[in-house]
């Protein structure tokens, strides 16, 4: 474990402590936690303006709840109306109805209220009623991971509905869900999903352990969570795959991976992951196999282009003029002749511009974003060439490597790769092709050292598993995909019975 992360975590943990944790404010000596009087609860939640306290004095019933967390219709139907219709004698009978759960534990009571349940006190005996119903985003399409064919539903911010999306796809009693909580203050729910009998329990244990070890005030998204639990937090590459697509996540589940979800986050993560998984999309499986294979290979080509193309331009224009064929030389020299900067600066300038455009497009509403793309791409590009700021060959290089980077399905990975590109451009400007090779070697060495939950991050490539290549670099016909990937070390590696 890294010293930095350790320090970071402990620091964060320390900050979390005094920051008004509800439990820590209740002095422990004041009584055992078995005291469940309403007064204690109200004490606990004092200064919470959104807490509602309703009394029905004639039947000695009090309701305590967060009005914004509960569904007013449900509350009215399940609680208020029945209470209005009873007399004092009838209350115990009413409380035997199913929606009222008697609570004995103080912690449970508090957490229930925090979750949006309504607490009902009848002569200081607490009950909880489930009337949760804050508004949530309906299940819609994923904006970041789109497919052409195949299911279009995506996770939303509600873990319950996300779990239901998975359950709908994997109808098996072997699909197990472990519920954990993370965040000392925020107490976010984390669900760890796996399929018993397929998954290697070591991985489940590792994830659970790591999530439990997190001591931080709050984690608000899965993408944030995985940075707390991955193997090398300082690496530029994400080591867990995140996805918003339930179909993708379901397929990861059955291939023996562990899935993690968070309440409040529309993405789930899967682990262990390999680098090459970031280059696959559900679409590959929904298309015919040759097309799927072609698309996959295209993505790897795109990877090559986006990492090396601009750097190669810089190297060639700065050091290796010999490499330009005679037919291309005039074009090259002519386009360079009016540029006042050395190729490195020129390339960095253009790359930065492209990144600016991308970031601006991402932050603005879709329609304006498009305009930005057009204005930036065409107008700036054209003007820059005409003004002699950049050469048009560089524009081609930069634009094609930018486009190539967007071919990679995972946004996180494509962003990381674009960052790597900057390093390579610098090195290429420094030492030409040798610098490029140094940079690539550095990336390869770094990748070889990476692990995801302890499993190799470049899995079917190293350790070499040719068997898995047919579902990594290509997408072989389903008939040939008989086994689960080696990386998951699944207990039951066979996914398809051999047809005789």
């Amino acid at each position, binding site marked *: 474990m*890294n*010293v*930095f992360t350790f320090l970071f975590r402990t620091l964060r943990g320390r900050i979390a402590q005094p920051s008004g944790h509800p439990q820590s404010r209740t002095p422990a000596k004041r009584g055992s936690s078995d005291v469940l009087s309403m007064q204690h609860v109200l004490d606990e939640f004092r200064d919470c303006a959104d807490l509602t306290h309703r009394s029905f004095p004639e039947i000695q019933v009090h309701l305590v709840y967060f009005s914004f967390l509960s569904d007013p219709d449900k509350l009215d139907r399940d609680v208020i109306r029945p209470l209005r219709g009873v007399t004092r004698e009838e209350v115990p009978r009413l409380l035997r109805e199913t929606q009222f759960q008697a609570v004995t534990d103080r912690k449970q009571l508090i957490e229930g209220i925090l979750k949006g349940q309504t607490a009902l006190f009848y002569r200081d005996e607490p009950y909880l009623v489930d009337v949760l119903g804050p508004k949530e985003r309906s299940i819609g399409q994923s904006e970041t991971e789109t497919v052409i064919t195949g299911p279009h539903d995506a996770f939303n911010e509600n873990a319950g509905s996300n779990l239901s999306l998975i359950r709908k796809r994997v109808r098996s009693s072997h699909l197990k869900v472990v519920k954990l909580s993370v965040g000392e203050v925020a107490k976010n729910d984390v669900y760890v999903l796996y399929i018993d009998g397929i998954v290697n329990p070591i991985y489940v244990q590792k994830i659970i352990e790591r999530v439990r070890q997190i001591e931080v005030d709050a984690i608000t998204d899965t993408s944030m969570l995985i940075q707390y639990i991955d193997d090398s937090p*300082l*690496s530029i590459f994400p080591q867990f795959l995140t996805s918003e697509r339930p179909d993708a996540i379901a397929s990861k589940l059955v291939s023996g991976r562990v899935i993690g979800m968070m309440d409040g986050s529309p993405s789930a993560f899967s682990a262990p992951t390999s680098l090459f998984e970031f280059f696959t999309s559900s679409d590959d499986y929904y298309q015919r196999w040759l097309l799927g294979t072609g698309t996959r290979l295209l993505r790897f080509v795109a990877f090559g282009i986006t990492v090396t193309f601009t750097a190669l331009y810089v190297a060639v*224009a*700065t*050091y*290796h*003029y*010999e490499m*330009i064929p*005679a037919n291309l*030389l*005039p*074009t*090259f*020299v*002519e*386009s*360079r*002749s*009016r*540029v006042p900067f*050395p*190729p490195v600066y020129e390339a960095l300038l253009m790359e930065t511009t492209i990144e600016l455009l991308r970031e601006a497009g991402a932050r603005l509403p879709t329609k304006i974003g498009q305009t930005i793309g057009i204005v930036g791409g065409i107008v700036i590009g054209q003007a820059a*060439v*005409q003004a002699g700021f950049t050469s*048009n060959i560089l524009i081609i290089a930069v634009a094609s490597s930018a486009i190539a980077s967007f071919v990679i399905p995972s946004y996180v990975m494509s962003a990381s790769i674009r960052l790597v590109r900057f390093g390579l451009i*610098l090195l290429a*400007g*420094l*030492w030409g092709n040798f610098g490029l090779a140094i940079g690539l070697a*550095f990336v390869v060495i*770094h990748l070889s050292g990476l692990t995801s939950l302890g499993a190799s991050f470049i899995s079917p490539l190293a350790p070499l598993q040719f068997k898995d290549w047919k579902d990594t670099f290509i997408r072989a016909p389903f008939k040939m995909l008989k086994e689960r990937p080696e990386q998951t070390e699944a207990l039951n590696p066979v996914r398809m019975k051999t047809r005789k």
Partner: protein
Amino acid sequence: MKARKLALLLLPLAALCGCGQQRVLERLGFININSYDLLPDGQLKMVAFIPKITGEGDSQTGESSSGQTGNVQMSGQTSGEVLTTTAHSSKEARMIQSRQTNWELVSGQLRNTLFGISVAKQGLWPYVDTLIRDPTISPRLKLSIVDGEAGDMLNKNYPQHPGVGRYIDRLLEKEIQDQGIPRVLLYDFERDYFDDGLDPVMPILKDAGDNVEISGIALFRDDKYVARIDSKDGVLLHMLRGKTRNGEINIEAPDGGKGLSHAMLSSLASNRKFKVGKDAAGRISVRITLDVEASVLEYMGELKIGDDRQRAKLEALIAESLKDRAENLIDLMRKNRADGIGAGTAVRNHIGYAAWKNMNWREEWAGAKITVHVKMKINNFGKFR
């Protein structure tokens, strides 16, 4: 964490050596053709041609860069800089030349080197040696000989063909493609020079007024020019040197004694075989078999090409003619003690090392019995019977 440490260490290094050594495209003067001539006083005259492709200070550049690329090349290469120097060595000449220009002269884009016939007679090796030694010079550099002064060819303006370097390069490229001349790249020449069973050859260029023409092929003994063959025998030489895939040759076949006729063989494919033996007197004999297939698209003569029997006769006549020409060619080589077809390699591989070393192949070659056999086959004669 390691990564960061490494990056921190790399950074100052980056600052240290970011300068020097750069060869940024637009500051370079790319020599794309150069020439060597020997002056009567023993000095070396070297001419280098730098095509002008940048159009610096030219207001047209902006327009042309947004126009078609083809246009750019044409307009960009209308002229170039010609640097002429005399010096004792080629590298010294380079130094003097670089003082004459505002460009940083580089030879990484050198495509052609021309040798004046004066240099070729003296021996090319010292110059070729320098070319090989320089790691920036491509092994794919084309070598040719100029009939006369090579430098004049670069100094002369061919108005119909702007950019003399590119012009000559394309001319040679095309002829090599059509197998009219053997391909003589730097490493081809070097290899043939070192090979003891083969002598190098090289195309000869000649200034023909408004054009440059390929006037023949030079035969070498080691690195020295000894004789030349006519350019019309170029394909034949190619056939004798090895496999030919796409040749074209004009045959003047005596048409059964009824006056001259001629046939044009195109899409010619041929295969050469050596058979080494000894004649009755114990002398080396080499039998060269040429297996030729070609289509005849033009034939002027008495024979009916559509008729099977007459076509067979024509095949025999062509074969006869080819044989005669090949034997004449070989006789020329033998007379000059130059083995331009590589018969020596076949003999060497046949007779064993000791015998080969004891033999002076050049002398043997002059006296050996060399026979040529041509198997001619017309595989089609167009779409008209």
